[in-house]
């Protein structure tokens, strides 16, 4: 009797958890499946040349990117993206700390920076071609010239927002110089810095693609535009899908990094909310 009752009591619990997992999977997959289904249906039933069926796209995708093209077009693009983004981060955070810590320096540079950051970065592509040609350094420069601003401005804001009580506390306990920078300034500005980096990452991908589309002979952006011009439609779609996947993968990666860096901040916010 007792054993029966235990099986009875675990029974509904187990089915409930199975059901919960099922709902989760459904939440995750239902809409994407529907959308892909819808696209497959409409592309199969339309004679539009521009909308190849999913299987054609998938075939083109495999054929294109599981070949040496991956090393010729995709990897160099990603490398330029990484270099550009890293340079922007170093430059943006470094300058941001300097500007954030000094009211005078900030006042001196503010209007000029306000103007420079308002320039939409893509217009710098033609300029960079004039100045440095169409090689890798042009593309990296374009990425940096666009990505530096959100990082810089957010760092300035974050550094300025360092809590004065905490700053006083640090002074009282003799925390100065680089330790102060490392332990106090950068850490307390890190939520804003990360927000800036996230914006910059999205911008970096855009700029990577644009710099390759405008004038280039290789790279992912170049390849996609090339397919479009030569009406290689499934290949063009395959390129777009890859771009989308890169965007998605980088954002997941960033999310992960942010979780590591800002674990304390999320906890703090949740704690403040709870009170």
């Amino acid at each position, binding site marked *: 009797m007792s054993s029966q009752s235990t099986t009875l009591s675990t029974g509904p619990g187990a089915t409930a958890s199975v059901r919960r997992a099922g709902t989760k999977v459904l939440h995750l997959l239902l809409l994407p499946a529907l959308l892909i289904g819808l696209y497959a249906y409409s592309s199969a039933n339309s004679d539009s040349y521009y909308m190849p069926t999913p299987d054609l796209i998938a075939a083109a995708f495999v054929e294109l990117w599981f070949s040496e093209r991956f090393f010729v077009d995709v990897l160099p693009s990603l490398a330029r993206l990484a270099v550009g983004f890293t340079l922007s981060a170093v430059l943006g955070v470094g300058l941001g700390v300097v500007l954030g810590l000094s009211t005078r320096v900030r006042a001196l540079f503010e209007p000029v920076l306000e103007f420079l950051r308002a320039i939409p970065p*893509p217009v710098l592509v033609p*300029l960079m071609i004039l100045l440095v040609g169409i090689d890798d350094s042009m593309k990296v420069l374009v990425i940096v010239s666009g990505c530096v601003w959100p990082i810089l401005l957010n760092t300035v804001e974050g550094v300025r927002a360092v809590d004065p009580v905490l700053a006083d506390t640090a002074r009282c306990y003799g925390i100065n110089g680089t330790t102060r920078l490392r332990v106090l300034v950068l850490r307390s500005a890190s939520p804003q810095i990360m927000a800036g980096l996230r914006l910059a990452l999205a911008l970096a991908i855009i700029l990577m693609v644009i710099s390759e589309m405008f004038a280039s002979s290789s790279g992912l952006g170049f390849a996609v535009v090339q397919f479009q011009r030569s009406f290689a439609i499934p290949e063009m779609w395959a390129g777009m899908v890859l771009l989308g996947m890169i965007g998605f993968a980088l954002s997941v990666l960033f999310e992960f990094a942010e979780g590591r860096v800002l674990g304390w901040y999320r906890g703090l916010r949740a704690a403040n909310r709870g009170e």
Partner: protein
Amino acid sequence: MTETTTQGTARERPEAPAGAGGRPRGAARTGPNKPLLGAVGIVAFLGMWEAVPHLGLVSERFLPPASTVLAALAQRATTPGLWIAVGDTLIGWGLGLAIAFVAAVLLGFAMGALPRVRAFTNSTVDFLRPIPSVALIPLAILLYGTDLRSTLLLVVYACFWLIYIQVLYGVADVDPVAEQTARSYGLGRLARIRYVVWPTTLPYLMTGVRLAAAVALILAITAQLIIGSPGIGQEIAVAQSSGAVSSVYALIVATGALGVLINIGVRVLERRVLRWHTSVRGEATA
């Protein structure tokens, strides 16, 4: 310099600290000379720009001095061509932003009110959102050519997600106590949206609009530059390919000025709309 973008405004920041002994600290120190320093900065910047090519540090062919560029800009400003290009750019920018705004607000509030439905959309949103809108360029060219609709496709796609996500954050941030209070006073669903949900969401929404306004300009210009739809971007591409270097610089300065105006405009709007809100009231004008 107020580009705070930690998800959903700077609300969680500790209250603006009263200075020592409760007095505003350093008001006198930073007050009067700030615009002066800024002006010095601008003059120094222009001076350096003027000097570098004159001193031969960079060839004038690549970097014309500031005076030449500004003269070129002034000359262009007297012709209708520049203003037509600016107008085209602004139409693409404004229309795209408006469409994205309306769509994002409607969908955002609907999803906020229907959390069960929203659960089904999360994975799709998380996948679509980080896709760089420039990936759509080839498709835009195929579908619409150099038409305005090409520009709109890019602008709307990029801006929609920015605003939509902010609306979702905002709707989720509604204070349960305020919500319950409103309920206990018998406010209906619409009244609750009007008096509780909307004011809570507004700061988030404005953050989204501020970010989207800048991004919309970037993409409007991109579309013109790459696709060749009419606008400043296209003018720049033409100037570059014809080797008119000082024109390229002049047009870049013009887009920068446009960007500054848009940024200022959005900030003024944000201030007006959120006048009642602490994050605006407490914020120092920096």
